[in-house]
């Protein structure tokens, strides 16, 4: 018997198999969009359906948030990817023969991320994340330029070291759970581990959490483990940058948060909160300052992703229902806005034939519609009202002010620094005399507009259903 939750995994994997057999990139792009749409439909069905805890899969209020974001952004990215890749083939940057694997890998990556999110087993979750990571490594090296190979190599080395350490942490968790739950699969099952945490050895839990934090923290892009992130974002195809920033970082964060829930179940174990607060704030402030020196537009927004992941980790580190709620909301808003920005940036880079910020000027004259979409998305990520990012950042800062007034100064300062940097760059890109090359682009505005509308709606009015849902998820987090 097939359960609802199996569709979000089966559809992408079956689509990947079909796509390998399709030589034409036009047909491939259409199949890719259809498959992503079906996965999104399965995700929505899951949101509306019942919550189940099975042997292999777990669907609760917490991971369903991640699955919903994952399938939605996967769907919109596939629409963007169709128009982006079409342009790359016309200009000859990518040979069509690669595309067959590109679409198949895209689906396999989406499927692996969903496996990771839905698995009720710490080992299977690790496998899903590892496969998704390896696929993105190949995708980052897709252009085969010296820069993209350097980026892919660095990404591969750092990500595999991170993921190896995470696996060691996973073994330690198993070892901690084994006396309480018995040998075999039960000691690797999320739902059982969470309940049995108080019977585990706190010393092993502490050590495990350190390994898991360093391991999965590398994938989240927390400073000082972030070195792979800007290169991987800048050199790969832009749809992959959008998926990396919007989704893969979230999946790693999901892993970290699940383990935090287990560790938090033991009163004598290390409190993950202060460690996460410190790492989050260091990433936030460090990335905010790094924004000023960027000359490459995709690299700029890669650092902005580090900044926002830092803020999200900080919020979850603070803990409590309100901060967790704000963290989840900010994560959703960041995924939507940042992938929207990458959609715009991808078309801009194609229009101007360069990613160097200094060579992109006067966009409002040469490509007015693109300029408006880009400007709105950047204003949204800066935290300007009325967009949803403002609401979530405001919530994070106010809850922190209420509990630890002095601590709230640090994220507020970091956000202001980042705001200045992004606004300065935005001005240069939008206004001034258009210079350099200028190509017409058949940009597909549907994904960007969709994301912006969602973020705008969330900023103006959050439906009560959504609030209740996020609140239940936040409560699960403790």
């Amino acid at each position, binding site marked *: 018997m097939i359960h609802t939750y199996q569709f979000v995994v089966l559809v992408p994997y079956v689509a990947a198999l079909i796509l390998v057999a399709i030589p034409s990139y036009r047909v491939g792009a259409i199949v890719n969009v259809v498959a992503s749409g079906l996965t999104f439909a399965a995700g929505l069905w899951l949101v509306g359906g019942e919550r189940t805890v099975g042997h292999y899969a777990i669907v609760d209020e917490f991971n369903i948030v991640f699955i919903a974001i994952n399938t939605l952004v996967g769907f919109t990215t596939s629409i963007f990817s169709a128009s982006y890749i079409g342009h790359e083939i016309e200009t000859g940057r990518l040979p069509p023969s690669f595309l067959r694997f590109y679409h198949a890998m895209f689906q396999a990556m989406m499927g692996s991320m969903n496996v990771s999110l839905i698995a009720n*087993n710490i*080992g*299977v979750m*690790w*496998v899903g994340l*590892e*496969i998704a990571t*390896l696929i993105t*490594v*190949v995708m980052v*090296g897709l252009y*085969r330029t*010296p*820069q993209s*190979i*350097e*980026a*892919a*190599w*660095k990404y*591969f*080395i750092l990500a*595999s*070291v991170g993921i*190896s*350490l995470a*696996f*060691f942490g996973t*073994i*330690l968790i*198993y*070892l901690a759970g*084994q*006396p309480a739950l018995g*040998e*075999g*699969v039960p*000691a*690797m099952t999320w739902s059982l581990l969470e309940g049995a945490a108080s019977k585990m*050895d706190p*010393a*092993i839990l502490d*050590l495990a959490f350190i390994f898991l934090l360093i391991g999965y923290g590398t994938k989240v892009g927390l400073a000082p483990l972030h070195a792979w992130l*800007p*290169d991987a974002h*800048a*050199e790969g195809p832009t749809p992959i940058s959008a998926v990396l920033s919007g989704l893969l970082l979230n999946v790693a964060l999901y892993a970290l948060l699940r383990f935090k829930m287990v560790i938090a179940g033991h009163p004598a174990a290390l409190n993950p909160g202060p460690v996460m607060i410190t790492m989050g704030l260091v990433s936030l402030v460090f990335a905010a300052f790094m924004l000023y*020196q*960027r*000359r*490459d537009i995709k*690299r700029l927004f890669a650092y902005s992703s580090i900044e926002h992941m830092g803020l999200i980790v900080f919020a979850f580190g603070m803990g409590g229902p309100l901060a967790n709620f704000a963290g989840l909301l900010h994560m959703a808003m960041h995924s939507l806005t940042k992938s929207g920005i990458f959609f715009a940036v991808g078309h801009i880079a194609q229009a101007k034939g360069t990613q160097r910020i200094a060579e992109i000027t006067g966009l409002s004259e040469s490509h007015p519609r693109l300029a408006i979409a880009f400007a709105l998305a950047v204003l949204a990520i800066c935290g300007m009202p009325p967009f949803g990012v403002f609401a979530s950042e405001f919530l994070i800062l106010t809850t922190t002010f209420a509990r630890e007034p002095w601590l709230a100064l640090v994220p507020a300062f970091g956000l202001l620094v980042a705001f200045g940097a992004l606004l300065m760059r935005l001005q240069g890109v939008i206004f001034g005399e258009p210079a350099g090359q200028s190509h017409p682009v058949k940009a597909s505005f549907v994904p960007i507009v969709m994301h912006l509308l969602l973020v705008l709606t969330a900023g103006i009015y959050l439906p009560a259903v959504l609030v209740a849902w996020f609140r239940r998820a936040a409560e699960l987090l403790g």
Partner: protein
Amino acid sequence: MNEVYDISHLLAGVMLVTSFALLYQGRIASVVNTFAAQSITLSLAVAWAAWSQDRPDLFITATIAFTLKGVIIPIALHRTVARLGIHHEVEKVVGVGIALMVGLALTALAQALLLKVAHSPENYYAGEQLALALAIILLGFLMMILRRNAVTQVVGFMSMENGLILAATGARGMPLVVEVSVAFSVLIALFVFAVFVFRIRERFDTIDVGALDRMRGDRR
């Protein structure tokens, strides 16, 4: 019961020694041979665990480790090295003396971390095995940092994976799912690595990873 642990600790100890040997090898060919020796020791350790814990499924993992990492991958790497004509010296970032000292410090760190954890009697032996495995993982990590050559970095990474499999078998009753997936991931890893080794060669006429440092995006 103690002989069981003595033999598994002996094999894990031999693996640790080969990890140290990997750090001071001067030629790429001998690095590959040392790695093969480590993988074969790993397959023995896993086979011993399979027999002593009465878990026949672990024999599959042992067989994979032996054929894939003990035979096929070393032969493939030897061929790659011969075809690219790079059988000369390994380029090192620091001298052998410093590398070995750092390696010793990492081993001591691994022991200190895990023996503190394994204070309860039922965890003691597993903890000892995990400490050795962690030392092997950290030494593989160290090797990746200290070597500039793409092939030796590959070997460092796979040596880390050896440590991971040792750790996974040290935890009693850990499901097979995980071991198979580790082997699987190594396969993909090798595929990815192979692609990159050839592409790096194709673009730069060298597999010295140091040549890549010039290609950082922002310094163009």
